């Protein structure tokens, strides 16, 4: 058995896994990689499921990499195979079909799973496997299967009204897609406002207005307490205040949490996610983790926490892959960032975009008429948060400044000016960007 240990074993088949494969192949063209994934699909992009459901893209465009990706990268892809346990001491991964895969280097990139709140009238196969929601007409929204199941439900039952539970990124994208399919949508959000993590109050208001213009109803500061059903199919969502929102479809979009079932009892250290260092190493030698299943250091707060966003997943996967293949790579900086269009209103949120109070200096520019809003948050002369609504052009310059911790005190007055650009910034930094030495995420 020992002799056929896989040099590189990758669990997962999404952004982080692909980042790892590409990084391994940059250093090691030959040694086979074994990739194991529960979903029996060629690698696809999860954030695109809302575009697919909305009918904006076809199935071919869902694929994140070309159809010959595995072959060209000498990846033995075992799709439709679920890894169920890791034995860190024996260096073996067990799969649901009873097989054991011995590895030299392991990457756990199995992602997150939808968080499903406790709601009366909602039945699951088990609490552990909250993905499998059994009440007909009730769905989560994180995978292609979810999008396909919703599409099938729409085609079969022609629902007219939808309730989306959760007014974050997933909820808004789900609402958009359902709107595009002609449904009347109500979003129920626990917080007092939309996108409470990414936006500040004023930006939330602009986003709420965009929703209202699209005919979407927003119910904030509310929770769905119970689901009503008729003949096993959902017929309404009852709020904690007793109000009932009649609907024929419910999408649970409260958020995602790292899916830790695979590593439970393995000895690999976990908190909310699998704890990784700046080289994406876990507490067990030779075992790496990346993407939504992991948690690393947030460079703005200094805390270790999951930051389940796409660019991070890729970067973490790439850093893990490089280190697995004997190279040397570290995560340089990490903070939350999101680009999301809210019913046609573009928004970009970087880092501590909504921060206020002691220690923070906040610069704001609002053009009510143009629905354009910018907010820059400074701490000790450095940008730690930025928010753009309506006009997102050149938002990445701010991301770069945050990434590199550039002191912008001297350019402070110009950060929100029309003529803001690289020319406004310290000459050394400008040279760094322009000379194209490569800029680390």
């Amino acid at each position, binding site marked *: 058995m020992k002799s056929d240990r896989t040099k590189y074993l990758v669990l997962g088949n999404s952004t982080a896994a692909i980042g790892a494969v590409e990084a391994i192949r940059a250093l090691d063209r030959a040694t086979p990689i074994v990739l194991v994934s529960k979903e029996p699909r060629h690698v696809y*992009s999860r954030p695109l499921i809302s575009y697919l459901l909305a009918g904006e893209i076809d199935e071919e465009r869902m694929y*994140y990499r070309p159809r010959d990706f595995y072959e060209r990268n000498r990846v033995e892809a075992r799709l439709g195979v679920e890894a169920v346990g890791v034995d860190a001491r024996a260096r073996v991964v067990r799969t649901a079909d009873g097989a054991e895969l011995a590895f030299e280097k392991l990457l756990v990139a199995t992602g997150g799973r939808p968080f499903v709140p406790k709601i009366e009238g909602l039945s699951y196969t088990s609490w552990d496997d909250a993905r499998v929601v059994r009440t007909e007409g009730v769905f989560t929204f994180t995978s292609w299967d979810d999008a396909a199941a919703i599409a099938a439900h729409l085609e079969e039952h022609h629902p007219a009204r939808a309730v989306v539970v959760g007014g974050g990124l997933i909820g808004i994208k789900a609402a958009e897609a359902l709107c595009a399919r002609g449904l009347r949508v109500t979003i129920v959000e626990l917080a007092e406002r939309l996108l409470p993590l990414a936006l500040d109050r004023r930006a939330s208001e602009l986003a709420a207005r965009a929703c209202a213009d699209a005919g979407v109803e927003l119910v904030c500061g509310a929770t769905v307490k119970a689901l009503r059903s008729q003949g096993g199919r959902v017929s309404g969502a009852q709020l904690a205040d007793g109000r009932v929102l009649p609907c024929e479809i419910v999408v649970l979009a409260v958020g995602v949490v790292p899916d830790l079932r695979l590593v439970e009892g393995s000895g690999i250290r976990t908190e909310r996610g699998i704890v990784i260092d700046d080289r994406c190493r876990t507490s067990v030698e030779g075992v790496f983790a990346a993407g939504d299943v992991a948690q690393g250091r947030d460079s703005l707060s200094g805390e270790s926490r999951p930051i389940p966003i796409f660019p991070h997943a890729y970067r973490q996967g790439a850093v893990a892959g490089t280190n697995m293949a004997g190279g040397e790579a570290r995560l340089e900086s990490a903070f939350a960032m999101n680009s999301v269009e809210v019913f046609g209103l573009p928004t970009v949120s970087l880092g501590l975009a909504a921060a206020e109070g002691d220690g923070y200096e906040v610069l704001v520019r609002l053009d009510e008429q143009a629905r354009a809003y910018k907010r820059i948050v400074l701490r000790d002369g450095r940008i730690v948060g930025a928010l753009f609504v309506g006009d997102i052009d*050149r*938002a990445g310059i701010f991301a770069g400044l945050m990434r590199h911790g550039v002191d912008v005190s001297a350019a402070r007055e110009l950060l929100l000016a029309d003529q803001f650009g690289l020319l406004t910034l310290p000459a050394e930094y400008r040279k760094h960007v322009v000379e194209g030495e490569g*800029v680390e995420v």
Partner: protein
Amino acid sequence: MKRIFAREEYCLGCRLCEINCLVKRSRSKRLIKALRRERHALVPGVRVEEAGRVSFALQCRHCDDAPCIEACIAGAMRRDPGTGAVLCDEARCVGCWSCIMVCPAGAVLRGKARKVASKCDLCAGEATPPCVEGCPNEALTYEER
């Protein structure tokens, strides 16, 4: 790989590079038609920044370690294996603007005619991109560094 570099000390701020890029990207390829009839739908891949008396032209840096490629949710932003240029496959781009969110040069813009990312593609196939070719004071160079 060859990249476009600006020399701030020579830049006159005339913006001819922007115009030449627009013409190159136009359907007609003719200056007057491009500016009068097509401009509303065109986004130049280069832009001139000005601050006081200093100006310089900036376009996609085609970074070796390009954050836009990593951030692209659609697999649309890719490196051309031949030239090394970072290119956006408009047939795959969904206009999520993740590339705009991460580009440290602010060199990706929203397209006007279609909802896709718009940026410098180094005019693949041209010996010298028209922005460089047409710069009256040789403030733009196209070279390997």
